[in-house]
Structures are given as structure tokens and as C-alpha cells.
């Protein structure tokens, strides 16, 4: 089924939307850290120890991420190969936005960031829980978070990555509706929501990073 152009397009759209859903959830939990250390610790502990989240949602999420980027690369390779002799002069900016033409670049940046992010949080977390089997501590999460944003260098990398995430979302979100065959009177609304979403969420993440850097 995922051999034809349109099926692949749909697969990209669905996996993308799934990741967007996750992003929203991640954002909500992180945002609580700004207001209440307690809520944040509670939610983090729940997410980290609930069996459904850990053994169904988490693998699904990882699968989603892997699928989205593998398919992204597959498409990119096929697309590059569809025009083996390149134009000497190609004015892409005349007819399409930079973001829409460079999803692979914003995608790679976001992917690299994910690597760092996994290294920062996920790997220590797995190590803590499943390899060294350290004792449960429902109040440790906030401290770990604040600690990570101690280095201004890391905050800068995070901030930059979120700018690219914003660019990626800016095209990807509304575009996935087009891929699913939805282009009608609601399209304007979807586009507006996309703009809002792709500005607010990454900006919020950046805010959280800077907030903890300042107050940590």
C-alpha cells in the first residue's frame, strides 16, 4: 500500500499529525513546570511509570518518529532522482515558500535535536529506571529539568532547534490536511491555526528553556 505517491503522502501526513498531537501533550506538561513544580513532578512521574504510556504509547511514538523520518528520506531521494539533470537557474522562491521547499533541512535539524534531547532526558531516564533499577523518586523530575538548562549553550541549541521545528510545522501541519484530501472552506481556518500553532508551541518551548535557565 505504501508504494504509490499518494499513499506515501498520506503516510507522511498521518505520522506527522500523530507527532503534532504528541507535541501538544509534551508542551502542556512542560508548561506546568513554569507554574507548579508539584504538578510537573506528578505528571512526569505518571508518564514515566504508567504501563500504557510506557509500553504502548512510547514505542508507538518512537515508531512514529522513525517512520516519519525514514519516509521523509525515502521521498527526498526519489524526488531528487526525478530530475537528474538540474536546472542552472531555478527560482524556487518565485513560486513557493522556503519552508515548503526545505522540509528536509528543517526536518534534519529537528531530528538532530531529537538525538540531543534523547541523550539529555530519555537515555538517563531509561538508564535510571530499567538498567540500574534505581529507587523510585516521584520528586526528582523538576530538578533534572532545571539542571539541564543550566548551560546557556544548551539553551541556545534548544532555542535554535525550536525555530526549525516552527518552520517544519509551518508547512507540515496544514499541508497534511491537503495530503489527506481536505481542501475546502475550512482550509483558511486550518492555515490560520497552523500559523498560530507553529508560532505558539515552539515559542513556548523556548520560553520554558529560558525560564528555567534564568530561574535555575
Amino acid at each position, binding site marked *: *500500500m505504501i*508504494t*504509490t*505517491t*499518494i*499513499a*506515501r*503522502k*498520506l503516510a507522511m501526513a498521518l505520522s506527522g499529525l500523530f507527532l503534532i498531537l504528541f507535541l501538544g501533550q509534551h508542551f502542556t506538561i512542560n508548561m506546568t513546570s513554569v507554574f507548579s513544580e508539584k504538578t510537573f513532578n506528578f505528571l512526569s512521574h505518571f508518564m514515566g511509570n504508567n504501563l500504557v504510556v510506557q509500553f504502548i504509547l512510547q514505542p508507538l511514538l518512537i515508531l512514529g518518529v522513525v517512520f516519519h523520518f525514514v519516509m521523509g528520506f525515502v*521521498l527526498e531521494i*526519489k*524526488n531528487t*532522482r*526525478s*530530475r*537528474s*539533470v*538540474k*536546472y*542552472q*537557474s*531555478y*527560482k*524556487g522562491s*518565485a*513560486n*513557493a*515558500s522556503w519552508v*515548503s*521547499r526545505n*522540509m528536509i533541512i528543517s526536518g534534519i535539524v529537528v531530528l538532530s535535536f531529537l538525538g540531543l534531547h534523547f541523550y539529555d532526558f530519555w537515555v538517563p531516564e531509561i538508564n535510571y529506571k530499567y538498567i540500574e533499577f534505581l529507587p523510585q523518586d516521584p520528586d526528582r523530575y523538576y530538578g533534572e529539568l532545571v539542571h539541564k538548562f543550566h548551560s546557556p549553550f544548551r539553551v541556545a541549541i534548544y532555542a535554535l532547534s525550536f525555530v526549525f521545528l516552527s518552520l517544519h510545522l509551518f*508547512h507540515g501541519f496544514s*499541508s497534511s490536511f*491537503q*495530503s*489527506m*484530501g*481536505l*481542501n*475546502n472552506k475550512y482550509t483558511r481556518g486550518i492555515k490560520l491555526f497552523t500559523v498560530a500553532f507553529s508560532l505558539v508551541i515552539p515559542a513556548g518551548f523556548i520560553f520554558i528553556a529560558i525560564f528555567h535557565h534564568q530561574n535555575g
Partner: protein
Amino acid sequence: MNLKLKIWRQANAEAKGKTITYSISDISPDMSFLEMMDMHNEQLIQQGEDPVAFDHDCREGICGMCSMFINGEAHGPDRLVTTCQLHMRKFKDGDTITIEPFRANAFPVIKDLAVDRSAFDRIQQAGGFVSVNTSGNTQDANAIPIDKHDADKAFDAATCIGCGACVASCKNASAMLFVSAKVSQYALLPQGKVEATDRVLNMVNQMDEEGFGNCTNTGACEVECPKGISLENIARMNRAYLTASLKG
């Protein structure tokens, strides 16, 4: 006007091509782009050189035969026109104009700026029709009233001239706008609905077989399309394809 032309020259499909720079003078702003090319060719002939091969026929923007990539854009910088409708008043004295063939692996170069777009014909042959006998023994034309909005939308999709600017402009060399225009025209009319499932599956399969790239919704095709075919058609085709796939 005096201009510099950087034109892609390639003797035939197998030959290796290269860009050659020419100068041309005394161009009137009222000339069409192709008349400028005619004049240039006339000079080449007088100098005993091989004139530049390019496709063109009706020169009024409807046959879809002209196909140049001018200064980085299909059909040049103007909007909603084909190359033959582009006029030299869009350029300035002293400009350098880069002229290349439409590029896509599915559109191999035949010579210089002329390319082979028969892939488009093959996609149409895979299902771009209503299977009705041409006997004239059909029902009366007014037997099925059609919602004016649907009829108008079907018409808008049907105005595609098959020039290939969508493929040429797309960074992925995707043919989705072309294919979706035909699929949409029939999807919107009751006459086309009967075989809608097979049509979309067959046409999309053929499109993939021809080696066009994937659509990534950049929207370049819609902007460069000389007939302003809307992206809505691509969405409609996606929808039709998914429904058809689920039906099996």
C-alpha cells in the same frame, strides 16, 4: 533592447548538452518571446549555425506545446501565461536571459529546448476518459442537469493545456497537478463518476511508473500554471485515491 541569451544546446537525446551564450540586439518590447527566438534563429541561420530547436505551435496560449524554462521559471516571469504569450516588455535592456528545457526524468530532452512529454499522453490513456461509445446514441444532453458550481469547477479543471509547467516548476518534478486536473474534471461530473474508482487508481499508477516525483505540497505548480489550475484538484484526487484504495 539588447540582450544576452544563455541557451541550453543539446544535439539529441543522447548527446551531452551545454549552455551557450549569445547576444541579440534590436529587440522591440512589443515582440513576443518566441518572436525574439525566431529572430535569433534567423540570425543563426544567416551565420550558418544550427538554429535553436524549441516546441511551439498555436502561439496563443492554448495548445500547450511551448515549454521553456526562462530565468528559473516555467514560461518565464509573467503569471498565467505560456511562453508564447510572454512579451519582451517584461525584460529590460541589457538583461541576461537563461533559457533551459523543462527538466524531469519523465520529460527527456529531444533537442535543445524541445522535450518529450508523451508520458502525459500515456497517463491519459490509462484512464483519462469516459468509456462511452462514440455512436451518438446516448441520452439527450439535457437529461441530467448538473449543478452549475460543479460544472464550472469541472470546466476550470478541464482547462489544463498539458504543457508540463507544473512538472517543470515542481522541485520534485511531480505531475500531480496535471493528473489531478483530469481526475477532478470527471469526478465532478455525473458522467465520470461511474468509473471513478478505476480511473484514479490507473492514472496514479501510470504516473508513478513514468518516474515523476512525489508531491510535497509546495504549491509551485499552482503559481506557475498558465491556466491557474487550483491545488484543490490535488486534494480532490488524494481523496478520490484513498477512497478508491479502500474500496479495493
